[in-house]
Every structure is written in C-alpha cells, then in structure tokens.
C-alpha cells in the first residue's frame, strides 16, 4: 500500500495525532516500565539507598519467580489446549447447528461474563461447600464437606483451569465459527473429499489446520493474557505457587519494603518476556506480508 502523501500533509494534524499516540499509548508504558526498572535496581523507592543488584540476585536465586513463571505458563498452556480443543470440536461437528438463531444467540452469552464473575461462580460451584459438593452429598458420593475433593485453591490449579476454559473456549468457538464461514471451510472440505480424502483426513488435514492458521495470532495473544490473568487466580489460586500477576501485586503491597523492590524485579522480567513474545508475533506477521 503506497502512502498517500497529501493525506498526511497537514503538519498540525500530524503533530496532534503523534502527540496523542505518544502521550496515551507510549508514554504510560514507558514511564511505568522505567519506574519499575529504577525501583528494581534500588535507584528510586522507599528505603532504597542507590543502585544495587541485590534485589535481582534475590529474585533470581530464590526461584520463586521461576516457579511462578513456569506455573503461569503451564496453566495458560493447559487452559488454552483444552479451550481450543473444545472449540474446534464444537465447530467442526456442530457448525451447521450453530446457524440456528437461538443456538447462535446462546453461543454469545458467555461473552457477558467477565473474569471476576467467572471466578465468583467458580467458588460457588467448585468449593467444598459449593453446588457440586452438595449434589455429591445428596447422591451419596460424599459424606460431608471434607469428602469433596479440592477443586479450588488446590495445587493443580483445577479451579483456575476450569474457569479459564469457561471464559476462553466460548470466545474461540465464536471465532472458529466465524472463520469457518468466511474461509468457506465447508467448501474446502467437499473439495478435499472430491480429491479422495475421507472425513477424518479432511478434518485433520484441512479443517483444523485452516482454523488454527487463521487464529494463530489470537491464540498467541490469549496465551499471554492468561499468563497475566489476575482476578481468577486471585480468588481461585493458592498461596504458593501463585500466578505472575498475583505474585507481583502481592509483593508490591507488602509491608516488607525489600519485597516491594523484588516485586518490581518480577514486573520488569515479566514485561520484557511479554514484550519479546509480542515482538516475535509481529515480526512473523510482517514476514508473511513482505
């Protein structure tokens, strides 16, 4: 696309737009990141005495950050795999049924549930005194509260994963249904049949690859979003290990002032990693169009 020079010829308008872009999009992130870096090296902050590597050494040596990072990445990956699988399954098998007006409307309903509501609902149904525990008691599977397994605040993050899936899978179902229609996947499936592919081959070699290819950027973004999720792990997670955002905020709110600096160290590392992943996603995209 050639740039239309006269479209950008009004200098005053350009300056305003550039100014707004800088002030509202670049400056806040740059300022926050700079402050976090300075705090992490002890240059600024309450009770900090000047440049030091102390906090960085502490964070990297205790392993709490690495553990939290690994924990967050694992939960995010597992949740995404389950969500994508469910969404793919429903799309490929039931895409015709979702053309029905009522079912199509119902498919959109989960978008009205934010993370905090999903987390609250998760507590209500998955906790030891929750709905499923009561159901289990009535059926006779458990005899009391303690008999019901730990589904929230547990070491395997079952509650977090279930809640993530309940939020993410519906979105990807809608996305895949959209792609299925726009990319005429049904037509391509028929074409594959005419070339000799059976149903199974068509699904694995045509439909699934197309759906995944067209949504790979969003899948990458959602992996990042889930890693940095806050409300759901805050309510449904354990004391340790914690997901990244919860750990960072916990440290930043500490009375122990050293912990605040360590919190900023984690925030800096987290931002750099996310930044690199984002850059990677974008640079691959650029290659495709070049």
């Amino acid at each position, binding site marked *: *696309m050639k*740039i*239309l020079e006269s*479209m*950008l010829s009004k200098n005053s*308008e350009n300056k305003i*737009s550039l100014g*707004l*872009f800088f002030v*509202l*999009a670049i400056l806040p*992130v740059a*300022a*926050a990141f700079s*402050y976090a870096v300075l705090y992490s090296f002890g240059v*600024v902050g309450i009770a900090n005495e000047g440049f030091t590597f102390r906090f960085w050494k502490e964070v990297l040596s205790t392993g709490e950050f690495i553990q939290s990072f690994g924990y967050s990445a694992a939960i995010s990956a597992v949740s995404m795999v389950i969500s994508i699988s469910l969404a793919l399954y429903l799309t490929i*098998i*039931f895409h015709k049924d979702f053309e029905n007006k009522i*079912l*199509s*409307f*119902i498919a*959109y*309903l989960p*978008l*009205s*549930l934010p*993370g*905090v*509501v999903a987390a*609250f*609902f998760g507590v*209500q149904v998955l906790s030891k005194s929750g709905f499923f525990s*009561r*159901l289990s*008691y009535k059926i006779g599977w458990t005899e009391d509260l303690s008999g019901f397994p730990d589904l929230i605040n547990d070491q395997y993050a079952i509650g977090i994963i279930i809640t993530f899936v309940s939020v993410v899978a*519906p*979105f990807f179902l*809608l996305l895949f249904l*959209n792609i299925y229609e726009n990319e005429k996947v049904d037509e391509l499936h028929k074409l594959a049949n005419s070339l000799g592919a059976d149903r199974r081959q068509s699904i694995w070699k045509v439909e699934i690859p197309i759906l995944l290819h067209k949504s790979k950027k*969003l899948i990458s*973004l959602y992996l*990042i*979003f889930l890693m*940095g*999720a*806050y409300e759901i792990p805050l*309510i449904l997670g354990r004391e340790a290990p914690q997901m*990244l*955002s919860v750990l*960072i*905020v916990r440290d930043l709110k500490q009375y122990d002032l050293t912990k605040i600096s360590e919190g900023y160290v984690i*925030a800096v590392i*987290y*931002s750099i990693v*996310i*930044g690199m992943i*984002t*850059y990677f996603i*974008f640079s691959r995209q650029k290659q495709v169009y070049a």
Partner: protein
Amino acid sequence: MPKFRKVTLLLYVVMIMFPFFYLFLLSLSAEWKFPDLTPNYFGIKNWQQIFSSQSGLGTSFITSLFISFFVALTSTSLGFYVSRYISYHPRRHTMSMLAYFPYVIAPVVFGACMIYFFLKMRLFGTLYGVILAQSFVAFPYALIFFTSFWGEKIQSYEQLVATLGGNVMQGFLKVTLPLAKGMLMICFFQTFLISWFEYGLTSIIGVGKVETLTIKVFLFIKESNFYFGALSCCLLILPPLFLIYLNKRYVFNKIL
C-alpha cells in the same frame, strides 16, 4: 438428528445457561447452607436493597456506568482520530506493534507500576484517576481496532472525494464518518466493556475509594456475603447481555 448430537448440544446449552440461572437464583436467596440444594429463602429482598446506602450497589452501578461511558467515549473518538495517522504512516507496522504493549501487559501490573505517577498527579484514589488509567488500556485497543478500517478502500474514497472537489472536512463528514459508523459503535461498546469488566487496575489506582461493581463483587466475596455477590454479578452482566441482544457484534470482536 442423531441422539449423540442432541445430547451433546443439550449439554452445551445447559453448561452455558447454568451460570446465569444459578447466579440469578443466588441473588434472590438467603440462608442457603450446606448441604441444601435449594435456598431457605427465595424472594426479592436482596434486589430491594440495590438503592440502599447499606449495599451501595446502586451507587456502584452508576459509578461504573459513568466511568465506562467516559472511557469508551474518549478511547473511541481519540483512537479513531489517531489510528488514521498510524495507518497511513510509513512506519505503521512498528507503531501498531508499539500500540499492542499497553494492551498485552496485564492491566494490574501496569497499574501497580503507575502508582507513583498517579500519586504525583494527585489522581491516585480518585474517580478521574481510574478513568485515566483505564483509558491507557482502552485507547490502544481502539487504535488496534481501527487500523483495519483505514485500508486501501477508505484511502481510495478519500482520494476520490478530493478529486471530486471536496476538502478534508467535507470528505470526513460526508463519506468517512458514515462509512465508519458501524465500527465506531462496535468500538464504543467494546471499550465500554473493557472498562466495565475491569477489576485489577481499578483496585490498584482506585485503592478502594472508587467502588465499581467489580470491586463490589470482591468485597462481598471477602465478607462471604455470596447473595449480594451474586446480585452484583447480575448487575454486572446486565449491560453486556443487553448489548448481545441488540447486536452481537457489539460484544464480539476479533482483533486480527
């Protein structure tokens, strides 16, 4: 339809609808203890408390509405204006990538790192501070959203209007704005929902003084007041449900 398909679809529908029914039921309940499957009280007394000062829910609802409306209006209009400049810029790819950073960084972490600046600007713990903080997340979203609008086709329309004798303002009012109407609406509601659903950033910058509905949900969870928690959830869900009913596109958008 084969039995397996019917059962699966029915299961799907039940799983989708269950949270809505359960939360609504819980909001109408009281004295619902383990191991009862139904509440001892079922009525509207919780809902009658919405506008009481004790629950504070009415105030929170209006606060959330005000914040979200303001965030949506400023983000959408500014995002639309600035996105044109970015889309036509020689370095638009780099600028678009930079616009993603505030959007991908967890808002709560972003907020935690911004506390110092909000304190200096005397916006910490204020309503306008929360609006500004949420705009730092919503504005980049709007920027990214509108970059798909300013493509070759719109550029061609702008050029056509110029050669037909129209100046920039005429082109904008008579062609660009009407063509962008649909997207402006969708972006407005999308940024409204980003703000409406926001918790982490609001709790950090608002520091408990700005009680939006999401903050209320958390407060009720802490107090183990699950009935009012459910009531807050119902209020929280109402606007997006209404938007889905009006036009599903307002709520679902893919940023590709």
